[in-house]
C-alpha cells in the first residue's frame, strides 16, 4: 500500500493518471511473477553453523539430532530454528521432557511465544508419541523433542529405540516439518543427521557434524559464546565484582532470621516484650536463682 501511495504522489507531480494505473499493473505483475516463498530450510542465523549443513540450514521434512552436554548450546540452536519458522509466521511445538525450557530467554531469541506450543507430558514414554503426532499433523513447521534428563534427576536416560527413531523420521517426512531432537551424549538417538555440540571453555563452543547422509561429516565450527549469549561475559575467566561477603552486611535485616531471636527473645533494643508476647514466668527466674528453695 505504501508503494501505491508513493506512486500516487509521483502521478500528482507529473499529472498523468494513466501512467499510475500502468505502474500499478506493473507492480502487480511483479508481485505475481515473484516465486512463492516456500520454506525449505530453517536457518539459525549463524553463518558458521548454517554452512555446516548441506542445505544451508536445518532442512524441513527431516529429523535432525542435536547431541551435547547439559549446557553446550543445543537449546539455543533449536530456539533459533524456531525463531526462523516464526519469522515466516509458521507454528512450532516444543515437547519439553525435562520441563526446563525458559520462555523469557526464548522470547529474547526472537521466538514468538504465542506461536509456540509447549507440551509437557507427564510420563516420559509419551514424549516420542506426542512428537510423532505433532510432526505428522503437518501443522507445525518445527517440532522440538527434548529427550534429555533434568539435571537433578537420578537414573539412566532412556534411549530412543530404533523403531521409535524410524517413526520420528517418518513423521517428519510425512508432515513436511523439521523435527529437532535434543539428546545427551550418553543416550543418543539413532539413524538421522546428528550434530554434536560441545562447550569448550569460557570462550566458546563448537558444533560438529557427526552423522549425515548428504555428506559433510566431520566438519566443525567453533564459535564464541557471545553469538548465543552476548552478555554472558565468561571470556578470560570472567569478571567478578568485588562485593562484600554475604555474611557481613549484604543482606538486609528483614531477610535474615528474626532479629528478636538474636536478642535473647526480647524485643528491639533488648527491652521486655510487649503485650503480644507472654511475660517470662517469674517462678522460673526465681527457681533458677534458688530463691524458692
Amino acid at each position, binding site marked *: 500500500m505504501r508503494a501505491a501511495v508513493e506512486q500516487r504522489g509521483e502521478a500528482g507531480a507529473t499529472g498523468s493518471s494513466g501512467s499510475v494505473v500502468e505502474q500499478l499493473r506493473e507492480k502487480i505483475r511483479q508481485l505475481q511473477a515473484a516465486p512463492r516463498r516456500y520454506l525449505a530450510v530453517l536457518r539459525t542465523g549463524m553463518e558458521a553453523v548454517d554452512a555446516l549443513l548441506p542445505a544451508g540450514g536445518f532442512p524441513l521434512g527431516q529429523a535432525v539430532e542435536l547431541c551435547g*552436554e547439559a549446557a553446550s548450546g543445543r537449546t539455543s540452536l533449536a530456539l533459533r530454528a524456531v525463531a526462523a519458522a516464526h519469522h515466516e*509466521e509458521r*507454528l512450532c511445538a516444543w515437547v519439553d521432557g525435562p520441563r526446563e525450557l525458559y520462555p523469557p530467554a526464548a522470547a529474547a531469541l526472537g521466538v514468538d511465544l504465542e506461536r509456540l506450543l509447549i*507440551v509437557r507430558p507427564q510420563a516420559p514414554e509419551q514424549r516420542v508419541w506426542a512428537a510423532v503426532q505433532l510432526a505428522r499433523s503437518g501443522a507445525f513447521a518445527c517440532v522440538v523433542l527434548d529427550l534429555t534428563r533434568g539435571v537433578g534427576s537420578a537414573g539412566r536416560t532412556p534411549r530412543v529405540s530404533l523403531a521409535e527413531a524410524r517413526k520420528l523420521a517418518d513423521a517428519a517426512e510425512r508432515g513436511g516439518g523439521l523435527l529437532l531432537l535434543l539428546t545427551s551424549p550418553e543416550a543418543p538417538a539413532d539413524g538421522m543427521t546428528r550434530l554434536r555440540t560441545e562447550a569448550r571453555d*569460557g570462550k566458546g563452543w563448537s558444533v560438529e557434524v557427526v552423522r549425515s547422509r548428504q555428506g559433510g561429516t566431520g566438519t566443525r565450527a567453533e564459535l564464541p559464546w557471545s553469538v548465543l549469549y552476548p552478555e*554472558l561475559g565468561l571470556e578470560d575467566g570472567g569478571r567478578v565484582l568485588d562485593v562484600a561477603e554475604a555474611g557481613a552486611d549484604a543482606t538486609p535485616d528483614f531477610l535474615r532470621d528474626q532479629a528478636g531471636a538474636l536478642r535473647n527473645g526480647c524485643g528491639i533494643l533488648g527491652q521486655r516484650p510487649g503485650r503480644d508476647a507472654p511475660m517470662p514466668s517469674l517462678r522460673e527466674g526465681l527457681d533458677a536463682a534458688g530463691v524458692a528453695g
Partner: protein
Amino acid sequence: MRRAYLHFTRFPVQRKVLELPELAGRPFALVEEVRGQRRVAFASTTALKAGVRPGMTLTAATALEPVLRHFPYRPEDEARALTVLGEALMALAPGFQLSPPEGLWLDAGAAHLVGGEEPLAVLALERCAELGYRGHAVVASEAFTSRALARHGARRVEVVPEGGGARALAPLPLAALEGGEGAAFSSLGLTTLGEVAVLPAGAVAARGGVAGARVHARCRGEDDTPFVAAVLDEVLEERVVLDFPAESFEPLRFALKTLTDRLGARLSGRRRAAVRLTFSMKLDPRGQARVPLTLARPTAQAKLLLDLARHRLEELKLENPVAEVSARVDEHSEDRGQQLALGDAPEGDAALEVVLSRLVTTLGEHSLFAAGLEAVHRPEAAHGARGFHPPERRRGLAAEGLEAGARADVAAGVGRERPSRLLAAPACLDAEVAESGRLLAARLGGKRHRVTALAGPERLGGEWWADVPYQRDYYRVHFEGLGPAWVFRDGRDGRFYLQGLFD
C-alpha cells in the same frame, strides 16, 4: 414492511431425514397423540405415495404400509430447529419470525445489501440447502401474501411488488386460507382467492363478521399483521434427547452431528466463532459426564467441530448408557473468516485442531500450553502458562512484505543474558567454596566439575512484602565438562544453588 417467507415443505420430515440419513427414501411418519389416539402428523413422500395421509390413525397408516416406521412428533423440537435455521439466516436478514411448524419470515428490509430482494430469497434458499433443507421463498409486503404464495404458489422464488398482493393471490385456491373461513366461501361456490377479493366488502362483513372481513381484506392484499422478530438466546446451547439410551458411540454420532450442525449454523449466523465448548451427557438412569473442548483457532465450521467432538468422545469410558447429549458454547469470539491464498489448503487449521484434540485427550489439558511473560522480577516466576491460541497468518499483500513495518519486534536485550534452560526448582549445589567465599568446583550427577570462569554477581532481591522474600547473588559460571550455568548464592542461608543452564 417487506418480508420474505421461507416455506419448507413438511419441515419435520426433512429434519428427521437429516438427523437419521438411513430414513431417506423410506416410508415413515411422525405421529402425535390426539384425544388418546395416535394420528399421523407428517408423513414422508414414500408413505404419502402409499396412501398415508396426515390425520389418519397410526393403525390405518400401518395397514396401508406395513413397513412404516413412526416417530413421535414434538412441536417444540421443530420450533427449535426452525429457530436454528432462522439464526443461520441472520447473516442475510436482521431479524426473523417463526411460523411453526413449516416456515419462517425474514425481515427483508436489508435486501439491498445483498443486491435486491430476489437475490436475498435465492441466497436464503442456498444457505438452507447447505444445511440440508429444501424450500420456497416469497418476498412480499404482507405476512399473509408471502406465506400463502410460498405454501401454495407454483414458483420457487417469487417477489411480489408493493401493492401487487391482490393480483398475485388471485389464482390461489381457497385452501390457502387455512381456516374455517375457506369452507364458508367454498359453499358459496367460490374456488379462488381472487373471487373472494371481488366480493363487496360490506356484504362479506355483514355475513361473515369480523373474521370474514379480515379474510376478505387479506385476499385483497391488505394485511396488518405485525412482524415480531424472535428474541435470540444469549447462551448458545443445543440439546438432543436420544430415542433410546445409547450404549455404543454410533447413535451418539448422529446426535453429535445434529448438535454441531446447529451450533455451527447459529454461530455463523451471528458471525461468531466458538473458542470453548462443553459437551454434557446425561446418563441413564443417573450420572453425568462433561467434556470440555478448547479450540486453538476459533471456528464456526460444523464439520471441524464434529471431528473434534468425535475424537474427544469416541474413547470416553462411561459407566451408564447415554440418554441425552447437549453442547454449549462457553466462549466465542468474532469470526473474521479465513482468506485463503492460491495453493493454500483450507484443511490446515483442521489438522492443527485434530492433533491438539488428540494430545489433550491423551495427555490432559494442562500438558499443552503456550507460554506468556509475566512482569515478575523473580526469575522462575517470570513466565506463565496461557491457552494456545496462535494468531492467523497474514496473507496476500500483507505477507509479501509490503507492510513489513507492522511486524512487532521482540523486546531486544531483555532476557538475553538469561539461560535457555531453567530448572523447575533451584537445585542445591554440592559446592567447594574457597576461604574467600569464591566457588571453586561443584559436584553434579556424581561428577566433579571445576569452575573455569565466573562472572557476576548480579543481585536480585525482592518480595519482602510477601511471605517468601528472596535475596540472591547470581553468578554465571562455566563448569568444566558441563558448560555455562546460572548459579546463585542465597542470601538467607549462604548456600549455592544451580538454577539454569546456558544451553
